């Protein structure tokens, strides 16, 4: 993906999808994010990000059969695409580089 740009929330959503493996869909992504960030995440925001990631080609989605708890309704499951993995790795590399080159005091001061 050339010039893929990830917003902060999009990056978190993409990571959550990666973390969830085969079980990534709207509700599970919302739960992971709420658990890990300890803040309220609206389901609408999750959908919006997943749609954007899908359009950017960073995730792929398919409809899978639903469980009883959903009234048997099918669900849209997401997996991270190869482009998405590449984008995540690229993000991480950028961050690691910046972290390793940051002076210790500045890091402490910001935390």
């Amino acid at each position: 993906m050339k010039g893929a740009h990830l917003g902060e929330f999009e990056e978190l959503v993409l990571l959550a999808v990666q973390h969830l493996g085969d079980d990534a869909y709207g509700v599970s992504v919302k739960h992971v994010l709420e658990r890990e960030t300890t803040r309220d995440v609206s389901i609408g925001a999750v959908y919006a990000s997943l749609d954007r990631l899908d359009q950017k080609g960073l995730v792929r989605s398919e409809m899978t059969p639903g469980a009883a708890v959903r009234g048997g309704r099918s669900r849209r499951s997401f997996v991270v695409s190869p482009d998405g993995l590449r984008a995540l790795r690229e993000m991480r590399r950028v961050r690691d580089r910046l972290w390793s080159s940051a002076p210790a005091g500045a890091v402490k001061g910001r935390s």
Partner: protein
Amino acid sequence: VSGDLLELWAIRQTSGRRDLRRALWRDIASIVGARLRRPAMAPSPHEPRVSASRILGVPHMWHDLRYACRVIRRQPAFAAVVLVSLALGIGANSALFTAVNGLLLEKVAVPDPDALVRVKSAGPNDMVRSSSDYGFNAPDAGRRVRSTVSFAIFQALRAANQTMTDLTAFAPRGGLNVFADGQADFATGLEASGNYFHTLEVNASHGRVFTEDDDRLDATPVVVLSDPYWQHRFHGDPSVIHRVISVNNQRMTIVGITPPEFVGVQQLNGQPPDLTMPLAFDAAVTTQTRMNEPTSWWLLLMGRRKPGVTVEHVQGNLDGPFRAAARAGMAAYTAGLSAADRQLSSNRQRGTAVPALSVSSGARGTYDLNTTSAQSAEFLSVVVSIVLLIVCANVANLLLSRATARQREISIRLSMGATRARLVRQLLTESLLLSGLGGACGVVVGYWGRALLPFGQSAPVNWHVFAFVAGLSVLTGIAFGLLPALRTTRVDLADSMKEGGRSVTGTRSLLAKGLLIVQVALSLLLLVGAGLFLRTLDNLRHVDVGFNPTNLLEFGLRPQLNGYDATRVANLYDELVDRLSTIPGVRSAATTQMTLTSGGESSSTVWAEGHPGDKPAEPDMFVMTVSPEFFKTMEIPILTGRGFTNHDTLTSPKVVLINETAARRLFPGDNPLGHHVGFSLEDNAALEIVGILRDTKYNSIRDAVPPTMYSCSRQGSQGSMQFVVRTAADPNIVSDAVRSTVRQVDSTLPLTNFTTQADQLEKRFAQERLFATAYSLFGGLALLLACIGLFGLMSYNVSRRTSEIGIRMALGAKRGAVVRMVLAESFLLVGLGSACGLASSVAAGRLVKAVLFGLAPTDPVTLMSALALVLLVAAFAAYLPARRASLVDPMVALRQQ
């Protein structure tokens, strides 16, 4: 998504959360919000598609719309004023459109209405001796059109038919006495050939419709009820099917109910007949059947074209057989006459004209829109369009004045790089949002308002109406939004950014002044209309009808429908007149074949004994049959001679009374008393004139009194009669006593047309009243809007010229002079508007001439009163700002400079 929402619900439920619903709504809101926000997002480089919506600026549109919402919310008072005016303007238009749509654009409620053809005849017709028609037929190229044919012609046409799947005949039967569940009432009926429902492709909603098998004399008599009648008479009880009821003393079995939307095919918007029955039972429910009368034309025809067949094909197929059958009918009648009858002048002078068949589309029903409704629609569309114009002018003015307040915002946006087109679009979006909201309110106003229109009550509100309102709203929004938007965005940046800059004020005032002149002119036009219609109504109400219309109660009875023979009918009427006269509060009672000014007419040719030549003395004499007490009850003075007495009986010499007009026309310069007249040349001495009555209006209040002749009901057979009851005070007080008196004599007799003479007269003025109300209401509203506009404009001008006025006063101008200056400016505008208004009123006057009564469209009193009203209200609106100007303190004003 719905699965996810269900899952979230379940998870929250198991974790014991209480606010499940609220959480669900929050989820839904967040999803909707996220979806809506997306188009407005900065375009991502990863979305290279360039969609059509992007080019058209759809993302901006959403943005504009949200911005417009915020702007409108910020000024709720402004928005409220605009919305109320728009709702009234668009509402009035949509009400009228709904009604007119029902009249003009709808089609009859049967499957494939376009295939229906109505079969009529046009041109002079000597093949008919008695005929009925039940609605309005628009003339065909100047020729009189008749909608009915005889039963024999119907049979001939049906036999000759090759172009239609079938042809059905039907005729309304005005009054039926229905007795069911121990209760008598009066119902309307329709007799139709057995193929009626099959031809129209209408099925029953309950039970079944009747068929050809039911339309035979040896079949069990059956009847189909209309849905409204079934609902109100039998409370929608489905078990009425197979119940036997009595219709004019004939036992008939209810077999089905027609669907609610089916109102028959006579005309759109009509009331369905309560009962529909096969034609074969005509003789059973009437005293005189016309089935075997070849020269009696009374049946309406409706056919259904075969696929691929045109109206012209049907015409070509049936014209020949129609003419032949019409001629055969007259020939059969003449052949049946005795030698003596054949010598009668009426039979000797018979013409030979045969009308032509006239086939046309029956999609809108048998009958045409009558001229009164068309005229009402026309006059009201003028008023509602003017109201909308005024509303547009007013809202445009409001927007202009607000634009001044937004000048700085606009300037900043322009200087930040916004294009003018972009800003115009933004401002137009606001206008369209306002007009859209106004349109939505307008639909509601229109829905309620259509009931006020004489032909709008049952008009459907369907997609036609919504499309009309949507289109109208867009047009309105552009009409009032475009000019202000263009004006507002034409800004000299450098100037207007400065505090107090007023670069656009000059042009704004010019445009605003123009709009104000238009408003004043249009309000004056409406007020002149209101004045003309109000005075017409007043003139009509004060017409001397020739009798005393107050404290008169009227109702009708049709005992012969219940099998009363002539003797019983006469006895019944005598007994009722006696009993009614003894009710406390009743002065006298009488019977008459028809009440005066009721809308009914009966006229005849009259010959006079000794009248030169074999020409009738009066070709169009209006006739009435009344009981002896009639003149006393109606308070019609007998000028000379005598009235009818109880000595005028079936066996005594026949006597008549005539009115002054008839006396003048029949016997100019001679005393008519003792002269003899008759209804045919041979019979011209049958009736002796014994008295002359004062002139009274007969049917129309507007027309001159027609020559009228009264004969005595005791000297002939009495059919259905109307009762007139003169009361000492308000007739409504005794109405219960009158009803119970009739019930005591025969409880199975329903009373019809129960009303008072005053109400009946008032009903005749319904159209005039409607015009007067509509024009007064909207004229007043228009004047109010115009004056608010004038007040706003002058206040604005005064505040703008504060310093100028201050200088004038500092230089010695008196307060009075300042007031005069401001007033003069206002009156220049109002004067210009009034001049335009007066000119257009005079020009439009000839259009309303036919509706006016007792005054000319250029009636100076009306014109001057309307003008005076406008000037008076305008003076008040202009005085307030003028006074404020005169109170300017020169020192304060100069310091401001």
